[in-house]
């Protein structure tokens, strides 16, 4: 492998990892607060992509010429808002009534919600892949040996910005403090006057909004979207969250990027067929030595 090729693969890996990271942030946040894996998260990512698909041709004509950038922001924000709303709605309808039940019940429900969204999506949008409209023209920047596209740069920058913003929300705001309190001990937090329902709704909304942005950014750089696109990305992002230490925000980001880079280097080697197998084998290896993930702390379950 030449040096140029190595750096090009690194760029490919980092940008693929940025997507995984963005989706993983949502998984990890919900887990951090509720100790529950929201398997429908990958499907919110898919819905984000489809919202972008339907909103772009309807909204962009209202933002001609120089206003196009404003239009993009409007499309993205609207998608985020709708995804957030959907996340909150799913939590209210499907998970909240089961909150006092065993964790396994909620987990199975989450899988049910996920399947509902996937096949409901097939019913509503149709099962054939669709070509995502050019919300942002994804062109190569620079003409040297190394290329990076506009979409890739935007995805990476947005991921970093959102990670910073999220960390700020969790660490510095009152709602963030409440999130951490609920995560630490929900009963104690409610006794201190924290409204648990609000905190949980907020967490779901925030996580789903992130999945929505990820859906749009992914579709800009990867062209085709279909109702089952969330399955594979969801599993990858979930793995990234576990790898980084589930419940840990920077961990999710690092886990996502690591997974993206490993996958890309395997995919570019002569073992390209075993891309996923080798990536996941490496992850199992890492988890054997650090069962709580790279940034996770081991917790002793108290009886």
């Amino acid at each position, binding site marked *: 492998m030449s040096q140029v*090729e190595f750096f*090009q693969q690194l760029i*490919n890996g980092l940008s*693929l990892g940025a997507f995984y990271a963005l989706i993983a942030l949502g998984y990890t946040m919900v887990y951090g607060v509720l100790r529950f894996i929201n398997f429908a998260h990958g499907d919110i990512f898919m819905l984000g992509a489809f919202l972008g698909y339907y909103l772009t041709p309807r909204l962009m004509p209202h933002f001609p010429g120089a206003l196009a950038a404003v239009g993009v922001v409007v499309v993205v924000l609207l998608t985020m808002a709708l995804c957030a709303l959907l996340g909150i709605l799913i939590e209210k309808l499907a998970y909240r009534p089961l909150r006092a039940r065993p964790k396994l019940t909620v987990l199975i429900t989450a899988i049910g919600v996920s399947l509902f969204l996937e096949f409901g999506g097939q019913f509503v949008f149709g099962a*054939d892949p669709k070509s995502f409209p050019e919300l942002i023209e994804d*062109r190569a920047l620079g003409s040297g040996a190394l290329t990076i596209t506009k979409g890739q740069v935007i995805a990476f920058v947005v991921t970093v910005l959102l990670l910073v913003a999220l960390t700020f929300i969790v660490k510095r705001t009152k709602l963030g403090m409440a999130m951490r309190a609920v995560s630490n001990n929900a009963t104690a937090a409610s006794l201190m006057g924290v409204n648990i329902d609000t905190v949980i709704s907020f967490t779901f909304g925030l996580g789903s909004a992130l999945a929505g942005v990820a859906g749009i950014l992914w579709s800009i750089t990867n*062209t*085709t979207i279909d109702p089952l696109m969330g399955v594979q990305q969801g599993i990858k992002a979930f793995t990234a969250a576990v790898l980084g230490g589930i419940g840990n925000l920077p961990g999710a980001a690092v886990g996502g990027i690591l997974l993206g880079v490993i996958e890309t*280097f395997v995919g*570019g080697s002569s073992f390209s067929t075993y891309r996923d197998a080798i990536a996941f084998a490496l992850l199992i290896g890492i988890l054997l030595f650090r069962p709580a993930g790279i940034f996770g702390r081991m917790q002793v379950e108290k009886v």
Partner: protein
Amino acid sequence: MMKPTLLRSLVLPLTLAVAGLFTAARAQDVVVGEFASLTGSEATFGINSNNGLQLALEEINAGGGLLNGRKVKVIVEDDQSKAGQAAAAVKKLIASDQVIAIIGEIASSRSLEAAPICQSASIPMISPGSTNPTVTDKGDYIFRVCFIDPFQGTVMAKFALDNLKAKKVAVLTDVKSDYSRGLAQFFEDYFKAHGGEIVKELAYNGGDKDFRAQLTTIKGANPDAIFVPGYYTEVGSIGKQARLLGIKVPLLGGDGWDSPKLLEIAGNSLEGCYFSTHFSPDDQSPKVQDFVKKYKAKFNAAPDGMAPLGYDAMMILADAIKTAGTTDGAKVRDALAQVKNYAAVTGNITIDDKRNATKSAVVLQVQGKAIKYTSTVAP
């Protein structure tokens, strides 16, 4: 006590009479089953081959049907472009719809699923467009009306050597698809045997959306062309990502590219690229032009390569039933095996001893927003 008995004595003959009515109706129609990918990632294959088939069906029934005026009825099952669904669809068609023959599929992996089921039920199966050679190996009831990949692979390898003067070619295959792996193999065999060099061989999984890792490695190997024997959904994305990575050499492919969706997904990234397929609407022969005219009138779109294959499959089946004079599986099978020089839309079809059609292929090129005819290659 009298009434119920009377009622019972009436019910049985009535039921029998009604059932007899339905059986009679069934015996009137010649029921053929079709399984196709009407939705999913190869949706245009299923939709367009089915369109072609429906066109043939209309003509057959308008011409008085088969076997002394019996109408032909086709029951279509959607396999959603998914592995496993094809077998389920065919089992349903045979067991519950009691079809006398089956037409399907384009994708070789799904035809390979269905073939053993048709074979063991002694139901003749005609694949309109599965080009992997192993499909008809499944038994003597399995036929096809298209050429096979040892031919198609050779056509493109020859094209790369002679027309493009390519010496070094990289190959990118879909590891999940029997079609893709087979076609790649036959391409490589011919290309290497005639002085070419395969500089890189990489694979992806059908359904993948990110191909940058494989393409970056291919770019590093500096090939003169890239052979991508995949299906149009992935090929479209591969084309787009290849250009964004600064790969400028042409991409080559097979009939898996032949879909109106290809350019919709690829944008202008496949400009100047070539693929081999069964048919070009630009072909000036009267048979083709007549088909194009009828197809446009009914579906308001130009036919791709899959549409005439569906048409030909249905027509050849009807022809065989006529020759056999019955819908009996074994007799229809024998009639199909004897098809010689049948003038089909996609060329003259002769079924060989391996139940494959021997006929020519065309090479098409992407030019702007259209796909243009460049040459015909005879077997």
